[in-house]
């Protein structure tokens, strides 16, 4: 049983710097990660750089945990990109816009590895 969080996604500088270089190692390191408050990380028993499984009703994905003091307790932030979006519903509620923020998610510690971008995209084939 994992910890329940409210999941949001968004831009970062390094993500932006690699917008045209998404197959790079730097993009992978920056985007396949999940920012959490120290209290949430302690609750999960994970240290920075350890893998966590993030699950929503629409999918699940493995990312690296990262401590971020600015992220409030109960909120998880994954930089926008293929890992965050694996967890997003395509339902736009008739407005054209998917819910990229405010998604009910569950996080748990895992020993599984983070899928590199090519392998992650293979899961859609």
């Amino acid at each position: 049983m994992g910890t329940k969080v409210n999941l949001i996604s968004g831009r970062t500088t390094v993500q932006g710097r690699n917008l045209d270089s998404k197959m790079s190692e730097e993009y992978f390191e920056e985007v396949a990660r999940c920012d959490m408050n120290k209290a949430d990380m302690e609750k999960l028993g994970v240290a920075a750089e350890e893998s966590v499984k993030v699950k929503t009703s629409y999918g699940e994905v493995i990312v690296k945990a990262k401590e971020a003091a600015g992220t409030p307790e109960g909120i998880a932030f994954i930089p926008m990109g293929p890992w965050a979006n694996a967890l997003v519903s395509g339902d736009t509620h008739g407005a054209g816009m998917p819910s990229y923020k405010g998604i009910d998610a569950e996080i748990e510690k895992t020993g599984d590895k983070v899928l590199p971008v090519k392998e992650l995209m293979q899961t859609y084939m």
Partner: protein
Amino acid sequence: MVEVTDVVCSLCGCVCDDITVEVEDNKVTKVKKGACSVGKSKLMGHNRIKSPAIRVNGELKDCSYDEAIKKAAEILAASRRPLLYGWSSTVCEADKVGVELAEEIGAVIDNTASVCHGPSVLAIQDVGLPSCTLGEVKNRADLIIYWGANPAEAHANHMKRYSYVSKGFWTEEGKKAKKLVIVDVRATKTSKMADVFLQLEQGKDYLVFSALRAILYGHADVVPDEVGGVSKKDLLETVEMMKAAKFGMTFFGMGVTHTGARHNNIVNAIQMTRAAHTHTKFSIMPMRGHYNVAGINQVCTWETGFPFAVDLTRGYAWYNPGELSATDLLIRQECDAALVIASDPGAHFPGESIKHLAKIPVIQIDPFPNPTTEFADVVFPVAVSGVEAEGNVYRMDNIPIRLRKLIDSDYPPDEEILKRILDEVRAIKEKEEK
């Protein structure tokens, strides 16, 4: 070595146009000044798609542009419900050909606004937008509000060139004589600079806009002690700052477009601006992401009457976001082929929508390999607009600016590939009619 000044950046909606670069042996070797780290990275270049390619037995095989054009035209001509998506990281000249292609083949044409500021477009169509240019903000604004936006990371030059840190005609003291309010769920690099940081609970933007409106209209008595995680004291202080400003400016980002109430959040943000007008001059503007997402909205509106999510299969333009937006079409598994240009739905669409995109024939036009390339069936490498090709784009405040060509390229510009696909589609249709 040649120094090129007044270079225009083709990365984000800031479209900075005061960059200096050095060019040597037909390469940008140095970005000397003007660009942020994200823009610099764009100008210096990345790994490219090397050759046009067609997917055969699951593998992309290099081919000639002629072969790829033929294959792409065959896919589009045979499609009963094609989707033409993207258009935001290219120039208006290419977008114009895109709309013509959509009309020719009877396609749905949508752009990245539908996953970015589409809700803002809907709100603006609903209640209008009291807005201005970024030049006016620079020269006049003494109170800046960023709501659900983190420009220190996402639009790194925005504060320096146009808002809080900039020095203009009536704002010659810069940030010393300005106030900065940040409204966000997380503490960010931007919020660290704020005079007031309203840290709200995720998804409670609508409530906080409503509370500020009530206070601005003189009804502070109806506002409870806390709204959406923000104390009444902080709300009252913010309103006092708004009233005291000579020119207030609200910039809003995807923190408000991506959450619960979507376009209703923006309607409320615009109504808050109107409430502020009862005291002082106030304006509002969306923080557009791609450098020409405002431009494809312009072009699509000139050509079809509507800015995004337009169906041209009926012989006339039909607009219905929520039905015709790319993600909705994909979720319903409605489209049977897609052309993706100047965008990357593989990285930026919900996983649920990508599943269908990965199943249907996809034509990709892009300078760079990205997650969409992983399932694209026909791939066209193209010149990088703003580095290897010129053309017009629209900054986030809808000011047109011409991108410059800095170096020569063997890759054709987007517009040329689109024109050739359009010609080939017309040739196929002509043959079929005979």
